[in-house]
């Protein structure tokens, strides 16, 4: 239960799709001019993520990963089809989106009218494929956790697009320098929001169990360098040791600013 709660809040705030990994930026920027449309797209993203991540988890677990075919018989245990994961994941997503669209249109025309136009957009939303790929690389253990991960990342994305849409509605009345109007100021605001969201980074370090200490130490090394690498470091010990050797080299070069960045983090 605890790990569910932890994953839930971690995916919403700390690993927020938009602010930590920049996934789904295209539709985030394109559809955030009005709060109402932003809500529609956000809801569709939550829905599709919550459906596709568990589906792709099943695919990954029973078809793609190293030795996943063992359930067919011992002679299949050596196959590793993980190089096919991109194409299978995207096919699942595209099919699911199409299917969802048909079902929603049939059974709930009112929901279709509010969600429908966004559904085709979603097939090519990086947040959806990103959710499945992160699910794979973060090695999520159970189907329940995969569902939780999809749902909570979707909620994180929803919150982000809702926030930026609200800000953009207000900023229309402000006197922004002409060349920055529209896209430029949106980028800068998103950057500032992302800095704000970084402050959630310290939230989870307290409750972790003993072996996490090392991971946290590694993360502290990696974080200021690039949140992406920090992610990798948090995920697997193996990865983190790889990253660490690389990072310590660079850390020598960024010694003092690292402290400065940590201070900002806190």
């Amino acid at each position, binding site marked *: 239960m605890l790990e569910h709660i932890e994953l839930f809040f971690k995916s919403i705030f700390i690993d927020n799709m938009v*602010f930590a*990994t*920049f*996934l*789904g*930026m*295209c539709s985030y*920027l*394109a559809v955030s001019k009005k709060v109402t449309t932003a809500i529609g797209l956000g809801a569709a993203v939550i829905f599709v993520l919550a459906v596709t991540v568990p589906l792709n988890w099943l695919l990954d677990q029973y078809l793609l990963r190293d030795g996943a075919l063992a359930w067919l018989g011992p002679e299949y245990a050596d196959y590793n089809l993980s*190089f*096919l*994961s*991109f*194409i299978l994941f*995207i*096919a699942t997503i*595209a099919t699911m989106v*199409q299917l969802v669209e048909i079902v929603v249109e049939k059974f709930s025309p009112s929901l279709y009218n509010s969600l429908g136009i966004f559904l085709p957009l979603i*097939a*090519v*939303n*990086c947040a*959806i*494929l*990103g959710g499945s*790929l*992160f699910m794979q690389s973060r090695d999520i253990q159970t189907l329940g956790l995969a569902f939780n991960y999809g749902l909570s990342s979707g909620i994180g994305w929803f919150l982000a697009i809702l926030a930026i849409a609200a800000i953009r509605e207000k900023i*229309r009345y402000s006197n922004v320098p*002409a*060349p*920055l*109007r*529209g896209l*430029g100021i949106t*980028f*800068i605001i*998103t*950057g*500032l929001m*992302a*800095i704000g969201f*970084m402050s959630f980074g310290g939230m989870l370090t307290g409750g972790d169990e003993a072996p996490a200490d090392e991971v946290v130490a590694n993360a502290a090394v990696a974080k*200021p*360098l*690039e*949140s*992406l*690498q920090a*992610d990798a470091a948090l995920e697997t010990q193996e*990865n983190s040791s*790889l990253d660490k050797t690389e990072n310590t080299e660079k850390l*020598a*070069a*960024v*010694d*003092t*600013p*690292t402290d*400065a*960045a940590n201070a900002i983090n806190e």
Partner: protein
Amino acid sequence: MGILSKKDTALILDPLADNNPITIQVLGICSALAITAELKASIVMAVSVIFVLAMGNVVISLMRNIIPSKIRIIVQLVVVATLVIVVDQVLKAFAYELSKTLSVFVGLIITNCIIMGRFEAFALANGPRRAFLDGIGNAAGYGFILVVIGFFRELLGSGTLLGIKVLGDPIEKTGLYAFGYENNGFMLLSPMALIIVGLIIWVQRSRNSALIEEN
């Protein structure tokens, strides 16, 4: 221009500046930002996207008359996914460290909007030769922004370029560091990529006022 007519040159050069996919068309931002803390990763990403987009444009353009329009999205996704798998496997084989740094963002080239955008807007309506040039041009415009961001983030953030210490050694206090210069570690954090893109847009639109948006 010899082989390239004026129109062809425009296909390549337009996306580099006035019709840039990132700053004007707002396509393909997702992967642009997360991997630009180092110049090397930016360059590799740019080259991968150029390869995928140019080849994909040609393939889609060749198939444009036989793809049923109802399922074209899925066909396009399959073509991109195949090309991206090639890129991913090549990177894993020849640049393993780098492919670890890029992690899932190589896979995310598939859903890079710039690719679907060009397929939809150009490859489905034009012949393979023009589609190829359009692919090169747009991907190069994308790569150009990536390299600019990567350049500034690595230079200001860690004082290096492609891993070479161009500003001197911060530990031994040589070069610029002898005068008390410090690296700005903040540049290495991902939000700075967004702010740099914002600034690039600012510069670009101040130079060309036709690009300024209403609101």
